Structure formats: C-alpha cells, structure tokens
C-alpha cells in the first residue's frame, strides 16, 4: 500500500465509516467505503485534504434505500475508492459541490436520473434532461426489477479481511 493511501485510510477509519480493502485485479478499485448520508461531507473533505480527485458521482437504485456512489482516485499514486452513501429518509444526501466543484454537474445529473436531492446544492436544475422531464427519473427501477443491496454486492461483504483471497480460492477450486 502506498504511504499516502495508508494515511488516508487511517484518517477515514477515525470517521464513522466502514472501509474495506478490495482485490484490485477482481474489482478495479482498491477500497470500498460505506457511509451514512450525514458523513458524506466529512469524507469528501478528508479526500480533498489527501490530494484525491473526484472521478464521478452516480446513483444506484436498490432496496431498501437508493445509494449515491462516489469514486475518488489520485493523480500521484494508485488508490481508487468507491464510496456508497445511503440516502436519508427524505431521499437526500448533502452536496459536496462546494468541496469538489466538479461534483456539481454529477449531482445535477444524478438528480435528473434518480430524483435524489442533494441538500444545499446551489443550482439543482436539470442538466442532461430537458426542463419538462424533471420528474422522469429514467434510471429508477421498476418494482419487479428492483433488487436488494445484498443482491448486487460481492458476497460476504461484511467479512473484511479474508474476502478477496477467499473469493479467489473459491473460484479456483
């Protein structure tokens, strides 16, 4: 692990978030982070402090509540973070567009496609979709297609330390 990534992970562990190391060869990113909506801003500030850049913000419609997916990476060393934040009871997540200005468009797009509201976003107007399609929310799943978060995650997501190795062995055997 790169020392800069190690420092970041240590600092993330001080926040009330769940950080799990992943097998890069299998998933294409290094860390998976689960976070509650109210910790998103603290996490983004931590990422900014440690020289990460924002790759994208997107949505994921799952049961019981939709998730907002953030991805962070670094210009200087390998270390890719996938962050999943569950929306709160009002279908809201706080904006990070004042921390990472690049998030502004991504958040507007996620509002277009999923109807997730980014609290305190300065200009949450439709970006990609037309003004009149504000309630279209095209990427929301139908009742039948909607899956539980556990059905779209790698198995045994709770078992942090042994997961990638165990998974590989199971595949080989």
């Amino acid at each position: 692990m790169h020392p800069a990534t190690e420092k970041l992970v240590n600092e993330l562990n001080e926040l009330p978030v769940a950080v799990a190391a992943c097998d890069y060869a299998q998933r294409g990113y290094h860390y998976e982070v689960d976070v509650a909506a109210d910790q998103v801003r603290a996490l983004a500030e931590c990422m900014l402090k440690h020289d990460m850049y924002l790759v994208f913000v997107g949505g994921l419609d799952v049961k019981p509540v939709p998730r907002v997916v953030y991805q962070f990476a670094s210009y200087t060393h390998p270390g890719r973070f996938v962050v999943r934040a569950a929306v709160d009871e009002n279908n809201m997540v706080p904006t990070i567009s004042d921390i990472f200005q690049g998030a502004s468009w991504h958040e507007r797009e996620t509002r277009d496609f999923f109807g997730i509201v980014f609290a305190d976003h300065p200009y949450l107007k439709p970006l990609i979709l037309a003004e009149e399609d504000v309630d279209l929310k095209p990427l929301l799943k139908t009742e039948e297609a909607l899956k539980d978060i556990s059905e779209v995650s790698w198995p045994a997501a709770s078992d942090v330390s042994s997961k990638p190795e165990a998974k590989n062995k199971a595949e080989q055997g």
Partner: protein
Amino acid sequence: METAKEQAAQYTLEPATDIPKSNHYYLNMGPQHPSTHGVLRVLLEMDGEYVIKAQPVLGYGHRMHEKMAEHKNWMAFMPNTGRMDYAAALPFNHGYAALFERLCNIEVPERAEYIRVITSELNRLVSHHLWLGAFLLDLGAFTPILYTFDDREQVLDILEDITGSRLTYCYFRVGGVCKDIDDKFVERTRAYIKRQRERFKVYNELVTGNIIFLKRVEGVGIISPEMARRYGATGPVVRGSGIAYDIRKAEPYSVYDRFDFEIPTGTTGDSLDRYLVRLEEMEQSLRIIEQALEQLPDGPYLGKVPKKLKLPTGDANFAVEAARGELSYYLVSGGGDMPYRLKIRVPSYSNLSLLPELAQGMLIADLVAAMGSLDLVIPEIDR
C-alpha cells in the same frame, strides 16, 4: 420555462468584477456555434467583450446510453460504446470489453492485447488530428486542417481495412478483437509512422512558432493543478497543468506496461501547454505503436468466451486512458447477463465542468481558444 436572463441570474458563481449590472447582456454561444463542436450551448453573461459568467447548457445530444446498457445483454451494447466519443471510439470499446474480462475472469490472447494497443493508439492519433485541425480552425487558421485531415485519412484507411468502419468502431470483443491484422496492415502502419514523423516538422513550421497563434493561446485559459483536481480534470488538460497523470502508467491495463513511453507535461497550464502536450502525445503514440509492431506475437486474436456469459453479483470498475482523459466504466451486476447499472464516466464531462470558473473575466475570443484547447466532444458529454 425560464428566460435566459432568469436562468443566468440563478447561477451562483460570483461575478469577477463589480461592473454595474445595467451594462450586462446575455449571449447564447451555440448550440450551432462552429467552435462548440457538436451541440453545446454556452449561456454567457457579457459586459462588452468580456465574459462575466459562462454556463454550459448540456443535453442536446443525450441518448441515455446508461439506460440502454441495462436493457441489452453485454454483447449487444458494444456498438453503443463507439457512439459516445465518435472521434476516438476504440478506447471506449476497450474499456467496455476489458470490464467484462475483469468481472468474468476471461483470458485475452496476447496477440489480441497487442492489436488493441496498436489500434487504440492509431485512434488516439486520429482524434488528435481532428482536434488539431479544428482547434486551429477555431482560431481562424484555415490551412492546418487541410494538412491534418490529409494525415488523418491515412490512418482512417488503415483502420477501415481491419475494423470495417471509419468512425464509430465496434472492433473489440470480450476476449479479444473480431478480426486479425495482417502483414499489409503492419506494412502500412510502419509507412504511416515514417510519414507522420516528417509531418510533425510541417506542423511545427506552420503553427507552433507562428506569432499570431502564440498571441492567441499563450497565457489564455490557465488551469492550475489545484483547480484541475477540484474539477476532476484528466487527460491532456491535467497534463498541461504539469501533473503527469496517465491511466496507461498509473493503472497499467492491457500490455501498456511493456512499452517505453513518456507522459508529456506542460508548465503553466495555459492553452499553449495543452496544445504542446497533445502534439507530443502523438509522437509518444507513434513510439508505442512502433514497439508493439516490433513485439507483436503470433497466436489467436480471440480467446475462448462462453456464448452465454453469466455475470457474478458485485461491482467492478475499469478505467482506460481515452483520447481526452480518464474513461471509467463502473458496473453493478445482480447476476444474469445484463448489467444492473452501468455508470460511464467520460473525460470531457469533467474537463468541461471547469469552464464557468475558467471563463470568468475572459474576452469572448479567448473563450473560443480556451474551449478549443479543452478538446471537447459533446456526444460523449451528453451520452
């Protein structure tokens, strides 16, 4: 519907100067403006010839590729990937094919990886040819596009022979590529490399030292490394600002780790730096192709792939260096043969999102130069 004035008034960037509001007027640049390449509209609040606020308005070319990905099986979506960035479709093919190879543990024959690298780099050259000609055309120089398109045709002919198309390629398959390259291809590519090296001299004589060109781009549209990071800019934009970040080196995929090439960087992050970086990148692409042709192994060009691919449950990401920067496919799968969700992170999207901050206080003529130097492809942004 709001009027343009109301829309602009709600936009929250603070004006750069305290000019009395009464002098301001609003101007739509695009969606048919020749220098917005495609259908981008930029809503400008102007004071005389100075830009007070610039707000890009997107979505004119939106096709909802992400939704289509959820309703087609993994193979049927491949043609869509070539229709986002029409100027450099092969890296988009590459990322998508490699994503499934990663997720399903599919082995790709070595020859196929080499073919992918060679054709992707040729496609990068094509894309930079297009950008070079169009950028200089935006700046009022008509001649260079005639030269760059002449060279571009050479590469397009080579690619057409093996891929069957000239623009929206669908050449890669999960597990390899759909057609092998032959001796004729190798021979023509070698001849092209030789020719292109000669042509760089022409480009430099015609453009790089030209005083009119330098006056238009030097010190215009300066992006600091810190600003690039806040917006998530990648590719030649961030390299122009002096950060040597290239996915081909940072997270080597395919066989890129076997080649000796450099990441060109700029110093000030102005439009001239981005121009120089792209020009140098073309030379580096030639170097990669040369080495790949040298090392090209024999063998199959398409690996063994099951007819019905069953995706495991879970998520995976695959990042590649497209012609404009980092392209990431992030796939969430719930089993079956269709993605549950496919997020496509395109480079121009983040690169353009820094325009409002970049454009503040700029002359409108400089805005054309700055936007041209970002190398935008709008259908890629709108998806």
